[in-house]
């Protein structure tokens, strides 16, 4: 249970980090909060030749307004969601979800960008990125590019970041103000990874009679966070309430293809996803004044 031997670098600038990444192509791991990487190193499940610690890069620890919402730098710890008013003001769903991300002792170090780049399919932040339609800013030696969320998550722990790129920023567009959200997950203990979780969003027309927009993203049920557009589309135009929510729930249960593993069977996960669909839509609806 001790990390393998590696060379350690703690560059002071992104450019320096990118050069190190280029010079050691394919043999590096970027160390941010380390709350996922350090366990992997301690257990020697990864054995990189070089660790590039980006914690001492000045200027990555920022949360600032961006034209469509908020931009979050790679140095920002997850606990910022609970502490920085900018999140509370425009992203109540992030605040609601934050307390489910591991524990305070982990959120103090674990970063928002790090969790997104690590792309654990059972983690909360990748699902929130999908639900909010966030975009990722990747810095490479040839400049930066922006990756939309539907092109970012590729598979288990795999993103479309290139080996010589670093995720330097996640940009969360603020959802429409009239949209209500719900975050639910089932895990064995509070703070564990979810067996199944959902991020649901709901908008109604002015008369509150019909659904105008729905967002349904699941985690813990596939190789990436899964957005079930078929269920979202089914809801649009329907009257909010039990019938529509049940129909969406059925589509979700049928549509998902989770794995069996040590923690839960695929059948159980499908069933829980259906139940969480109903509950989360109900919860969102109640926030909009429904009953």
């Amino acid at each position, binding site marked *: 249970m001790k990390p393998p031997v590696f060379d350690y670098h703690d560059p002071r600038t992104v450019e320096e980090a990118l050069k190190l990444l280029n010079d050691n192509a394919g043999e590096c791991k970027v160390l941010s909060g380390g709350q996922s990487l*350090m366990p992997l190193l301690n257990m020697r499940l990864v054995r990189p030749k070089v660790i590039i610690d980006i914690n001492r890069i000045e200027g990555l620890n920022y949360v600032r307004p961006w034209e469509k919402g908020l931009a979050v730098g790679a140095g920002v710890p997850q606990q910022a969601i609970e502490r920085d008013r900018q999140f509370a003001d425009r992203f109540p769903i992030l605040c609601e979800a934050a307390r489910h991300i591991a524990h*305070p002792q982990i959120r103090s170090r674990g970063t928002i960008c790090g969790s997104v780049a690590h792309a654990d399919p059972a983690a909360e932040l990748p699902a929130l990125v999908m639900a909010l339609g966030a975009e990722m800013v990747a810095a490479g030696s040839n400049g930066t590019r922006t990756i939309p969320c539907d092109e970012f998550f590729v598979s288990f722990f795999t993103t479309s970041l290139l080996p010589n790129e670093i995720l330097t920023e996640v940009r969360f567009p603020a959802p429409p103000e009239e949209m209500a959200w719900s975050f639910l997950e089932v895990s064995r203990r509070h703070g564990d990874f979810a067996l199944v979780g959902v991020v649901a969003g709901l908008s109604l027309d002015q008369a509150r009679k019909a659904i105008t927009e729905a967002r349904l993203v699941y985690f813990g049920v596939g190789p990436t966070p899964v957005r079930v557009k078929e269920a979202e589309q089914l809801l649009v135009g329907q009257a909010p309430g039990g019938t529509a929510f049940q129909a969406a729930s059925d589509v979700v249960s049928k549509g998902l293809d989770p794995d069996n593993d040590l923690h839960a069977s695929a059948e159980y996960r499908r069933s829980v996803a259906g139940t969480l669909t109903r509950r989360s839509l109900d919860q969102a609806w109640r926030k909009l004044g429904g009953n």
Partner: protein
Amino acid sequence: MARNRTIQLRVNGVDHEGTVEVRKTLSDFLREDLGLCGTNIGCEHGVCGACTILMNGETVRSCLLLAVQADGMELMTVEGLASPTGELHPIQQAFRDKHGLQCGFCTPGFLMTTYKLLQSNPNPSLEEIKEWLAGHLCRCTGYEDILESVKLAASRLRGENITAQTQPKSS
């Protein structure tokens, strides 16, 4: 080769300098290099919470940090709780009075998290205490006595004059 580094850090108010292998975890550095063995190492992957300390005022898992990452930082470990004369910190005293420990292995982590919790929130609800302590595993106590300990510590630190009711356990 960038495989050793000299680092400087302050632990419990005392400045230290040490040369470490870059792959050495902070928890190992505290125990092996500084002789501060109060910080216990349990799972070494961030789950059990035994190695929790404060770094720059925040609770962190010292097994999930490299010692080199603590260069220039200010740490507080369980050794920093009691007064130099050996008088227990009110949190420690409360754990003792309420039987908040049996074997004591997990206790340093619980104490450090409780310290941070009560510093930021002197009057936490039971739910809040549970949420903070959920990041710690204890295999002896069943947690009830730990919750009681934290509640007692909180009331004492708030200056409320509550004497511990240390009823003997019937067993």
